[in-house]
C-alpha cells in the first residue's frame, strides 16, 4: 500500500466531490490515505506517482536552429579544426579548456563552473544514422526519437506520458512557450504549455467585476464543473463509488475543462507566491527557467519541463550571434541550478539540452556555418557522471560524411539513459526498441 496519492487518484478525488465545489488543490493527508487504501487494489501499477515533493524531474532544453557544436565544445588542439575554420575558429588561448584537446566556448563560463563542480556531463558526437539537414525534419526526428527513415506520430515524451503516466494530472508535462513541442504529442493528450501564467486561464475580459452578481468568472466556473462537483453535500462514502466512464466526447471535454481550471488555479497561485532563490537573467530563456524554478519550488506535480531558446541558425556572422546565445544559455542554466540548490531540489532535477543538428565542419563564405549533423548534448544535475562522454568525432576530411561529423553516440541512447536511470521507467516501449543507455546518471 502506498502512502502518497497518485495523480490519477487526485483527479478522481476531485471528480468525486469531496472537495468538488471548492476546487481546492491540497488534499488533507487523512483523506489521501483513506482514498489510497480504497483504491489500492485498482491502482494501475504502471502509473508513476508524483507528489510534487519527491520524485525526479527532467528539464529538456531545446536549442532551436541547429547549434554549431564544434564552436561550443571546441577541439582546439586539432589542426583540422583551425584549417576548416580560418575566420571563425576559436584560438586555444580563448577557450575554457576541459583537457588537452577540447574546451568550452569562452561565453560558457556558467557551464565551466558546473563542469568543475562535477554537475555537467557532455555527450560528444550525438546524432543518428542517415542524418537529415532540414530543420523541420531533423527536429521531428529528435522530438519523436524516430529513425530518419520513419515517421512517428507521437513524441518521445508523449510516449513516456502514455506509457508511464496514464491518467496523470495534465501538469505532469509543462512546456514554457506558446506551443506544445512535438515531443509532447501523445495518444492521450497530456501536458500544459504556457508562456505566461497570467494567460493560462479563462480571461473574463473587461466586463468582469468581481463580487457583483452576474460575474463572468463565477458563471464560467459553474459552467465548467462536471455535475458531481456541483453536489457539495457528498460524503466520504462517495469515494468508493463507481467511476463514471461513459467514454463520450463530452465526458472527455468535461474532464479536461476541470483539469484546466484546477491546473490554472494552481500554476497561477504558485507563480504568484513562490519566491525565486537566485537571480535569473532577463532573457526569454532566463525567464522560462525562472518560472520552472518557481513551479518546482511550489511542488507542481510535474515530471517533465520543456523550455527552448532559438536563434542558432548561424549561416552568417556566427561569432557574435553564437556568443550572445551561449552566454545566455550558460548564465540562465547556472542561475537555474543555483535556484534549485537553494531550494534543496537540485538532487531531483536533471536538465538535458539538444539541438536538431550541429553544423558543417568548414565555415562558409559569410562567416557562418551551414546545416550539419552530430553535435554535443549537455546533461546537468547533481547526480550526473560529470565529464566528457562518448567520442569526439574526427574532423579529418577523410572521416567526414559530406562535410559533416559522423555521430558517435545515438541520441536515443541518451534518451534511454534518462528514461531508465532518471525517470525510472522502461525505455523500450517508449523508444520502440532497445538502445543501450549511456552511463550518464
Amino acid at each position, binding site marked *: 500500500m502506498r502512502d502518497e496519492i497518485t495523480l490519477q487518484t487526485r483527479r478522481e478525488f476531485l471528480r468525486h466531490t469531496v472537495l468538488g465545489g471548492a476546487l481546492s488543490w491540497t488534499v488533507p493527508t487523512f483523506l489521501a490515505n483513506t482514498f489510497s487504501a480504497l483504491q489500492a487494489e485498482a491502482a494501475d501499477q504502471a502509473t508513476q506517482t508524483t507528489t510534487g515533493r519527491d520524485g525526479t524531474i527532467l528539464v529538456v532544453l531545446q536549442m532551436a536552429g541547429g547549434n554549431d557544436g564544434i564552436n561550443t565544445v571546441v577541439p582546439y588542439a586539432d589542426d583540422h579544426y583551425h584549417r576548416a575554420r580560418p575566420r571563425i575558429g576559436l584560438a586555444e588561448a580563448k577557450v575554457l579548456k576541459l583537457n588537452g584537446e577540447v574546451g568550452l566556448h569562452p561565453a560558457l563560463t556558467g557551464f565551466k563552473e558546473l563542469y568543475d563542480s562535477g554537475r555537467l556531463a557532455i555527450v560528444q558526437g550525438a546524432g543518428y544514422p542517415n542524418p537529415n539537414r532540414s530543420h523541420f525534419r531533423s527536429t521531428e526526428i529528435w522530438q519523436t526519437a524516430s529513425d530518419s527513415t520513419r515517421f512517428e506520430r507521437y513524441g518521445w515524451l508523449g510516449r513516456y506520458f502514455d506509457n508511464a503516466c496514464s491518467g496523470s494530472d495534465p501538469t505532469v508535462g509543462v512546456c514554457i512557450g506558446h506551443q506544445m513541442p512535438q515531443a509532447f*504529442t501523445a495518444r492521450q493528450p497530456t501536458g500544459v504549455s504556457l508562456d505566461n501564467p497570467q494567460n493560462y486561464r*479563462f480571461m473574463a475580459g473587461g466586463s468582469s467585476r468581481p463580487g457583483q452578481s452576474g460575474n463572468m468568472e463565477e458563471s464560467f466556473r459553474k459552467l465548467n464543473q462536471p455535475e458531481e462537483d456541483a453536489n457539495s453535500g457528498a460524503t466520504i462514502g462517495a469515494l468508493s463509488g463507481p467511476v463514471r466512464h461513459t467514454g463520450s466526447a*463530452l465526458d472527455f471535454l468535461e474532464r479536461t475543462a476541470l483539469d484546466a481550471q484546477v491546473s490554472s488555479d494552481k500554476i497561477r497561485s504558485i507563480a504568484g507566491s513562490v519566491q525565486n532563490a537566485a537571480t535569473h537573467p532577463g532573457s526569454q530563456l532566463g525567464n522560462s527557467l525562472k518560472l520552472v524554478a518557481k513551479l518546482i519550488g511550489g511542488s507542481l506535480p510535474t515530471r517533465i519541463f520543456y523550455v*527552448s531558446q532559438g536563434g542558432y541558425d548561424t549561416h552568417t556572422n556566427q561569432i557574435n550571434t553564437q556568443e550572445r546565445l551561449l552566454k545566455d544559455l550558460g548564465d540562465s542554466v547556472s542561475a537555474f541550478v543555483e535556484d534549485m540548490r537553494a531550494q534543496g531540489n537540485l538532487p531531483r532535477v536533471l536538465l538535458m539540452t539538444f539541438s536538431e543538428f550541429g553544423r558543417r565542419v568548414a565555415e562558409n563564405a559569410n562567416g557562418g556555418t551551414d546545416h550539419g549533423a552530430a553535435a554535443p548534448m549537455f546533461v546537468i544535475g547533481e547526480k550526473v557522471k560529470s565529464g566528457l562522454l562518448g567520442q569526439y568525432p574526427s574532423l579529418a576530411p577523410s572521416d567526414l560524411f559530406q562535410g559533416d561529423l559522423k555521430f558517435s553516440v545515438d541520441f536515443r541512447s541518451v534518451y534511454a539513459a534518462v528514461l531508465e536511470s532518471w525517470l525510472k521507467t522502461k525505455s523500450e516501449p517508449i523508444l520502440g526498441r532497445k538502445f543501450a543507455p549511456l552511463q550518464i546518471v
Partner: protein
Amino acid sequence: MPADRWDFTTAAHLLNRAGFGGVPMEIGRLAVMSPAQAVSWLVDYERIPDNTTNPAWAQPDPERAERLRAARNASPEERRKLVQEMQKNQREQIVELRAWWLQRMACGPRPLQEKMTLFWHGHFATSAEKVRDAYLMWRQNDLFRRLGTGNWLELLVAVAKDPAMLIWLDQAQSRKEHPNENFAREVMELFTLGEGHYTEKDVTEAARALTGWSYDRLDEDFTERPMWHDRGEKTIFGQTGYFDGQDFLELLVARPQAARFISAKLWNFFAGTPPSPELTDALAATFREAGNQFKTLLRTMFLSQEFYAPSIIRNQVKSPVQWLVGSVRMLERPLPPPLVCTGLTRNLGQDLFAPPNVKGWDGGLSWITTNTLLARYNEAATLLQGDVAPVAGGALANRPNANRQFVRRMAQLRIGAVDAGKLFTEKQRESVDALLPALERRLLQAQFKPEQEKVLRDYLGGQPELTDSAILNAIRLAMSTPEYQLT
C-alpha cells in the same frame, strides 16, 4: 434516412458535418426539403455558381527563371538577401492563402466542396514548411477542390504528379540509381492501404516504378524524366511487369483494401467515429460499384440511417478550423484579418498548410488539451468582442524573432465586435425566457443541461437589462463550455 426523422436537428447535423454549420434560417431552409433534396444540394454543388477569385499570385511566376538566374549569379551576400526576401514573401503569402481558404469555407456557396478539400488536405498532408512555395500550396489546394469528389484513381494520379507533393515526399529527386522510397511508402501506408497491407518489397519495387516522375523548377510543373526511369521488370502485389508510375497507381487502386481504407477514413471524418467492419464493407462495396466515385459514396453516407444515430449526432469534437469557421458563420461576423486567423487556428493546434507531419492531424479528442480548451474559451472573446490579446501568443515557439514581430503586428490590429442586433429579434430580446432558447438554437441546435441553463439564466437575470454587451457576454459564456466544442 427515414423522412419522419428529418427535422431541424438532423438538418443541422447534416449541415454541420457536410459543411461548416449555418444560422437557424439556413438550417430551416434544408429542413423543409426532403432528405434527398438536402443532400443533393450539398453533393451536386456544380449547379451552384462559384465566382470566387484566386489570389493574385496564384499562377506560375513569369519572372521566376530570371530570378533564379540572378540569384545564381549574385554574390553570396546578395544571394542571401534575395533568398531572405523570397522566404519572407512566401510566408506572407501562406498567411494570405490560409485566410483565402477560410473565407471560402465561411462564405463560399459550396460547403461540401470546401469540407472535402479540407479532408484531402488532412489526408495528403503536405506542409509549406518544406515546400516553401505558396503558389504550389495553392495549386494543391485547387486540385483537391477540383477532383475531391471525383474518381479515386484520377485523384491519386493527380496528387502523385502534384508539384507540392513531389517536393514534400522527395519523389522529385528519385532516380533509378537511387530510388527514393518516401512517396512509394507513404502512398501505401497513409494514402491508400494502411500498414500491414503491403510488403517492404512492394515499397522498393513501387519506388522503382515511380522513378522519373519529377518536378521542373523552372516551369514549376510536373515533368517525366525518361533518363531517370528504371525500365526494368518489377513485381508489385505479386504481379510482374515493366511497370511505371501510372501502372503502379492502377494496381494500387484495384486493391479491395484501397476502397475499404478510404471509405472508412471518410466515414470517420464525417461521422466522427470509426465505422464497424460491416459498415466499412458496405461503404466500400457502394464505392466500388460506383466505379470508385466519391460523390456516390458521400450521397450514400449522408442518406444512411447510421449517419443520424444518436451516438453520432453532437458527439464529434470540432476541429479548430470547424470551430473558427462555424463560429464566424454562427455569429454572422466577417472573418478576422489574415494574420489573426493564422493566430487563432495555430493556437488551437491546426495550422492550415502546415500539418505537423505527413500523417496529418490526429483530430478527434486530440484537439483538446487544457491549453487548447482555454484558448478556445478565450478566442471566443476575440470573435465576439474583437479582443485580439488571446491570439497574440500564436507564433512559432521555435522562432523568438518571428514571435516578437508577430506580437507587435498583432498589437496594432483591431477587429470589429459582433453585432448582437443581427443575431436575435426584438421579441427574442424581450426576456431571458425568450432569449435562452434562441441562443441554444443558434449555438448548439440542442439544449444545455439544466444546471448550465440555470447559470446562463442567472447571469442574464443579474444584468440590469438585456443590452448588446450582456448578450455578447452570455454568448461568450455559452461558447466557453465543453458542449460548444462538440458538433
